[in-house]
């Protein structure tokens, strides 16, 4: 070493270790306090008596958990006290210059929902598995879309076209399954349809350097127009093209008998199981394999990838296509996995919500999945609450998931950093 190190050595590897000024943000305790006060208002000003029943198992479950019957007022008071205690704990934590741990926030969130449901479900019963299963169903296409979005953006192409990919997948899978009579062929055709939409995105943004957001938006319009046109001109006149075939649910032996979890996760149809696989595959693939390493390199620093011999634009093209294929599967959920028939504009903005989940989930497959689940939960909560007769007008209940998303994005996520080269075309001489 002596020959190599000059006399006045600055050990170059030594990062200047700086002292750290601790920061504290009162955002979290304040938010908790607001919700605690809300809970307090519910149990006092909007007092409701009676009993609230939480049914933990539906009648077909293998293991029947007992119902939880809670006195509405009493439970409300107790939970409000617990919420207040958590708020104080959080405040104390911040006062001691420490961050409020995420799990505490999670516990608070769950308890608040329980408190709210108890209040809203006064003299009524709420089927908890139903609430959760419904949430999963509403989330499934969002998760597929979000996974497609994550892959595409990670490789450097902003994917606003998720809506188009979902819709394309839904349309083609319904038609192909009807024509061939095979659900499986339909499923594969959804992959292809999503990939084709994506390829248009890829060709225009990579080959022709058109702004990716522009292509995405326009593709959504194009696919909406095309499917609606064909639906009106062709499908409605030949019902044989839109027979409404569906996958039925498969119980996974053993697993499906686990109380609560079993019916929720393991009595689903194949599209949902494919979703589990997709989540795991995308997560492992992105962070543990050569494919993921290269993909992320291309999305972060395409020149660097190019200089080590990775074909940037080819990588982008194929991965964007793959992303479309995954989103196309989500489209198949609308038809083959859920409703059977294709309906005009049946995705109803799910692609945009999936896009929001991608950003909300900070371009991470797991977080994006969680974001999509949150959205599905909020949507289904709305359903459940309006059934148990919550006194809030239906429109405000319908607004709930969107407001929750705004609050979450504004309050929790804030500025987030996407893949550095996302949205930028790679131009090589």
């Amino acid at each position: 070493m002596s020959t190599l190190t000059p006399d006045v050595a600055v050990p170059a590897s030594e990062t200047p270790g700086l002292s750290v000024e601790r920061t504290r943000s009162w955002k979290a305790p304040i938010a908790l306090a607001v919700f605690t006060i809300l809970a307090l208002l519910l149990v006092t000003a909007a007092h409701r008596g009676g009993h609230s029943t939480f049914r933990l198992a539906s009648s077909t479950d293998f293991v029947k958990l007992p119902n939880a019957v809670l006195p509405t007022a009493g439970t409300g008071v107790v939970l409000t006290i617990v919420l207040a205690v958590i708020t104080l704990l959080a405040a104390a934590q911040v006062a001691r210059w420490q961050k409020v741990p995420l799990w505490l926030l999670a516990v608070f969130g769950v308890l608040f929902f329980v408190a709210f449901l108890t209040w809203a479900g006064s003299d009524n019963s709420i089927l908890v598995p139903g609430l959760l299963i419904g949430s999963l169903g509403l989330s499934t296409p969002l998760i597929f879309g979000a996974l497609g979005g994550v892959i595409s953006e990670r490789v450097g192409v902003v994917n606003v076209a998720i809506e188009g990919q979902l819709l394309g997948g839904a349309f083609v899978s319904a038609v192909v399954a009807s024509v061939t009579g095979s659900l499986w062929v339909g499923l594969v055709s959804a992959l292809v349809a999503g990939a084709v939409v994506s390829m248009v995105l890829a060709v225009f943004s990579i080959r022709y350097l058109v702004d990716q957001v522009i292509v995405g938006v326009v593709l959504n319009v194009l696919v909406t127009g095309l499917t609606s046109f064909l639906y009106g001109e062709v499908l409605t006149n030949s019902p044989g093209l839109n027979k409404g075939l569906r996958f039925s649910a498969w119980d996974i032996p053993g697993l499906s008998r686990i109380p609560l979890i079993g019916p929720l996760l393991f009595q689903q149809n194949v599209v949902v199981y494919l979703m589990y696989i997709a989540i795991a595959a995308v997560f492992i693939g992105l962070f543990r394999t050569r494919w993921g390493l290269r993909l992320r390199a291309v999305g972060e620093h395409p020149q660097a990838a190019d200089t080590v011999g990775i074909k940037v634009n080819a990588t982008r093209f194929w991965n964007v296509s793959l992303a479309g294929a995954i989103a196309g599967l989500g489209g198949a959920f609308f038809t083959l996995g859920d409703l059977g028939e294709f309906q005009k504009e049946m995705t109803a903005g799910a692609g945009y919500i999936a896009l929001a989940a991608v950003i909300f989930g900070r371009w991470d497959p797991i977080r994006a999945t969680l974001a999509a689940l949150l959205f599905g939960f909020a949507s289904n909560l709305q359903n459940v609450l309006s059934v148990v007769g919550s006194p809030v007008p239906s429109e405000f209940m319908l607004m709930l998931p969107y407001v929750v998303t705004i609050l979450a994005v504004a309050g929790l996520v804030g500025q987030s950093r996407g893949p550095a080269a996302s949205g930028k075309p790679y131009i090589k001489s």
Partner: protein
Amino acid sequence: MKLELQGITKRFGALTANDHIDLTAEPGEIHALLGENGAGKSTLMNVLYGLYQADEGRILLDDVPQHFAGPGDAMNAGIGMVHQHFMLVPVFTVAENVMLGHEETTFGGRLDLPGARAKVREISRRFGFDVDPDAIVEELPVGVQQRVEIIKALSREAKVLIFDEPTAVLTPQETDELMAIMRQLRDAGTAIVFITHKLREVREVADRITVIRLGKVVGEAEPTASNAELASLMVGRSVELTVQKEPATPGETALVVDGLRVIDAIGQVVVDDVSFELHRGEILAIAGVQGNGQTELTEAILGLQDRVEGRILLDGREIQGQSVRRVLDAGVGFVPEDRTEDGLVGEFTIAENLMLDRSYRSPFVRRGWLKLVDLAQFAADKVKEFDIRSQGITTPVGRLSGGNQQKVVLARELSRDLRLFVAAQPTRGIDVGSIEFVHKRIVATRDEGVPVIVVSTELDEVTALADRIAVMYRGAIVGIVPADTPRDVLGLMMAGETPDAPDSENHQKEQLA
């Protein structure tokens, strides 16, 4: 391995960036490639590395003609390149960066990260680097990042190594270390092509020197050639290499920085209790290895930092805690370190960039209207005055060369009534001719009685421009010393050691007296 380039020609549209260039690098030789900005050096190397396809000419390795369709081919043939702008993925770890492109995998296609780590450690040990394979690249100092680039090339067993301006971002010490590494590699039989603007380095390390200008080889030189000879070969005319300036005549105190602390987004104290005073008509150079708080210091003065404590008084008025606009209005001129990112709007025209900091009121705005005629006149004047070479004032600045971009920034910042001028890395990455010009303007500004702060990691520049030198280390000022302080003392200070002179401020005062 012997590298030979024969008659390489590369055209970009009408522009011939390389015009029949011949170049040979023998094994065990460091071949320096000198040339002004835009001379065509990087283009030539990119052709060699398979990033560009040559329009004419051939590449031979050990006398075998090669065809490189992409960098992959070049790498497989044994060519490695340390790029002018690092080609590292910032969010990846060192090991991931090193393995990228030739990853080993274990069962099921999983990445063999342990293998990559081992490789990084092995190469580090061989060359005496100290690089943690699991460190995230963007968190590493530039010097270390460059080592990662070298490890990357070595991990692929490169026999021909190209260094494209590797020293532009290094401290003198790091530069020395790098040159030691280059010698070591050379001695191991690697053929090295070394590109730089810095004549001192060339003479120190090169075995052979080729100079190109406007895409053509204009001559070869021996390492013994004088700076002036090399410079005039490069530029095609004689250049002044030292800054001509009269001794400073400092006036009253203009800027007082007192107990300044800056805390960054993750809570680190990046500027730690910095205090100094600055007089009218004086240049204070802030030296230091990059990343020791200089950037944040200048940004804090300008009001760009969010969490700042302490006081900054300009002519007795507090400017700390003010908005950037207020600070600019108070008469601060600022040349940011990263001109394309912070100094210019690339898609805007030269004229529009020249009014960027005066978009609220006169002289270019009246009652919400832009005064385009006045602006055009002003821009035309400035283009002439600062010799900004372009097709005209409506050229988007993104299309200008780096030196000309910097001139646009300078023209803008120096055309207000200044009470303080702060220039961060004013000559980074620009050519000798432009450096000369920029230095002259800075000194002229001082001579008008404006206090000037120059931040530079180049010791040459620091010593040439400064009336006093402040050295920063880990966010604090290690000492403020006179301009004639020897380089090695400055080097030690940059490494965090307090200067020998027990009381440098006293020394300074003596000088003033």
